[in-house]
């Protein structure tokens, strides 16, 4: 099997995991991680082996299911975008406490520059926090190879391994040469039963064990072929993950600086000491937040040698590029064409014919009838309701926050407090908030704009499809205040009336405008035709 494949970094991770013998991939969609799970869903090898690959309801359920697979000795991959780590964090940090049995690799895809995200958080901090090894590939081939190693490492040290990609690695294609595939593990159990039961007495023992493991992890990082020390002149560069490529891009004839390439953490200490002795100045290149730079510099910055995002050599925010790395290296600039005066921004927008459009048209109209109405929204295509022509929403924070923020505002006296949430976001993190609202009889109106799919990330299955009314009833919303409408212009009179009635009802009401996403509709029609 030495064929050459031109594949995305995401797909390289997926293939590496399959060839490492995973029994399941557990994930909730999120740019730029979605294509990993989608690749496995379409893989003939995965089908042949019965690899589990259905979407999970959220990142926490994904992490826990994968830990269950690890418990019985199987290998499992968990994938998410960086903010998914916040949702999965409880399970992730405590999976390091229990430790693993079958290999467990957690892939977090970070999005510096926020191409499709609400923040720039750097998942390496989670890895350090949980005290687990972190892999950060610099090429698609390395991504493929590293996933396989990550599973071996996870089984060797009995810890989850965090693998971190950034957008440019996840969504860039290069040639990958795969290696022979390994068979999945059979069922087995760890001999140490107590470490899986994190009662304080067991957890205290495990915490000491995990701390004691850190030396071993550092030794492995120092010995890793993915971390490389290249001696050169007295100007040092530490290049993490894909930053290494931007460095080399700027030295087409070879780099004369002393370079430490870092792709495995915790940071190896020896080469860092070496560089500190060999160099007068050390530039840290890392995509995302200044994770390495901050550790080296410390609060007191005793060496005065460390440069990077914190010292201003590189921009404090945004992704690295060959250009800002070039400037940080002090290399001469390149003459550029002037930008054209005929170019204006072209922001994304809700598709023509999208049901969310009708929802916002109606909401804007009815909300205007009240002096203080506020619309708390959430994350998904419908967030685009913030942009013209709608400018309909007052908030978008994190998955599920629409319902809970509306509740908090209603508790404090706001009327009307309206929440707008998508169907997938509702099942991801909205149900618990709805229960809070029901229990306290909050005066809120929740609009679950149901397009029967997870549209923003490309139309994945949505966990609540066909169950939304039953979920709302089950949580305790009164039957007569769960209303379904079809968001189309011909129904505007009815929608207006339903909105008014439910806003006026002093309690929790749920309105479900339901119409299939026009992108998935088009795709399904096309499939039917062929």
């Amino acid at each position: 099997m030495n064929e050459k494949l031109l594949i995305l970094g995401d797909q390289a991770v997926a293939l590496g995991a399959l060839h490492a013998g995973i029994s399941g991939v557990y994930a909730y969609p999120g740019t730029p991680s979605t294509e990993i799970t989608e690749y496995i869903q379409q893989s003939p090898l995965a089908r042949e082996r019965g690899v589990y690959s259905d979407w999970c309801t959220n990142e926490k359920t994904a992490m826990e299911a994968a830990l269950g697979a690890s418990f019985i000795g199987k290998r499992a991959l968990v994938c998410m975008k960086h903010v998914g780590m916040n949702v999965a964090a409880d399970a992730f940090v405590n999976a390091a406490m229990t430790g693993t049995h079958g290999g467990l690799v957690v892939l977090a895809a970070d999005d510096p520059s926020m191409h499709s995200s609400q923040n720039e958080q750097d998942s390496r901090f989670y890895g350090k926090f949980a005290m687990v090894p972190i892999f950060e590939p610099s090429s698609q081939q390395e991504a493929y190879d590293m996933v396989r190693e990550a599973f071996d490492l996870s089984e060797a040290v009995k810890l989850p391994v965090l693998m971190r990609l950034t957008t440019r690695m996840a969504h860039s294609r290069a040639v990958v040469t795969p290696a022979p595939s390994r068979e999945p593990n059979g069922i087995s159990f760890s001999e140490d039963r107590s470490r899986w039961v994190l009662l304080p007495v067991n957890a205290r023992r495990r915490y000491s064990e995990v701390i004691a493991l850190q030396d071993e992890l550092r030794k492995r990082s120092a010995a890793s072929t993915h971390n490389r020390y290249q001696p050169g002149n007295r100007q040092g560069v530490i290049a993490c993950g894909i930053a290494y490529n931007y460095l080399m891009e700027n030295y087409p004839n070879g780099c004369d600086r002393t370079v430490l390439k870092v792709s495995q953490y915790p940071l190896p200490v020896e080469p860092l000491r070496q560089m500190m002795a060999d160099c007068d100045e050390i530039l840290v290149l890392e995509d995302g937040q200044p994770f390495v730079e901050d550790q080296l510099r410390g609060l007191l910055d005793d060496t005065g040698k460390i440069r990077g995002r914190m010292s201003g050599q590189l921009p404090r925010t945004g992704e690295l590029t060959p250009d800002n790395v070039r400037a940080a290296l002090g290399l001469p600039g390149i003459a550029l064409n002037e930008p054209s005066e005929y170019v204006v921004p072209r922001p994304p927008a809700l598709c023509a014919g999208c049901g969310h459009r009708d929802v916002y048209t109606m909401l804007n109209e009815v909300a205007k009838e009240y002096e203080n109405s506020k619309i708390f929204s959430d994350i998904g295509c419908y967030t685009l309701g913030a942009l013209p022509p709608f400018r309909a929403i007052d908030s978008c924070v994190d998955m599920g926050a629409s319902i809970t923020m509306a509740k908090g505002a209603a508790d404090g006296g706001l009327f009307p407090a309206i929440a707008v949430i998508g169907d997938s976001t509702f099942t991801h993190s909205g149900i618990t908030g709805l229960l809070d609202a029901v229990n306290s009889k909050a005066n809120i109106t929740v609009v679950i704009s149901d397009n029967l799919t997870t549209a923003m990330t490309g139309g994945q299955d949505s966990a609540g499809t066909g169950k939304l009314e039953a979920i709302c009833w089950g949580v305790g919303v009164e039957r007569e205040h769960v209303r379904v409408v079809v968001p189309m212009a011909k129904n505007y009179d009815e929608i207006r009336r339903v909105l008014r009635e439910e806003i006026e009802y002093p309690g929790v009401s749920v309105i479900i405008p339901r119409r299939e996403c026009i992108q998935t509709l088009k795709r399904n029609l096309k499939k039917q035709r062929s």
Partner: protein
Amino acid sequence: MKRDIILSGVGGQGILSIAAIIGEAALRKGLYVKQAEVHGMSQRGGDVQSNLRLSSEPIHSDLIPRGGTDAIIAMEPMEALRYLPYLSPEGWMVTNSTPFINIPNYPDTEQLLKTLKERPRVILVDADALAKDHGMPRAVNMVLLGAASAILGLDASLLEEAVAGLFASKGTEVVEMNVQAFRLGREAATQQVKGAGHAE
């Protein structure tokens, strides 16, 4: 040999198919390839681009440095100009002349096309019209790819094979239509390249 290419357009216009075909042809020629794509938010009718790098030497960065792009291939004229600061002084621009207007403040089309025409090394083809006139309105991106083939430095036969490969699963009729679209674009561009006194 090195070709750094920016493909640009509006979400849904098919730049990733163009990228896939050029990438496939380059692989068949034994070149190294890297291709950074945009997925996600911006695909909803926003501007999209892809950085495609081909080289006989190993390629480091997934992103093309500013000022280093050899060719901008654009499905739409304003999206061609968006990446001007990335174009090298000797670089080419190959663009569809039909604008995609989905914003209220789209610039004056005449002015836009005039600036493009005034630039050196610009190939301007009305890919929409060519495709429509020949009864293949869905192959606009293949017309543009054909036009770009005039300056890419890859054999047309290699590219045509890759076009055929991409559409093979859809039957011979679809393959033939797309290859024909490719040839239409190539012919239109070759005349312009000759007219401009440039040869490749």
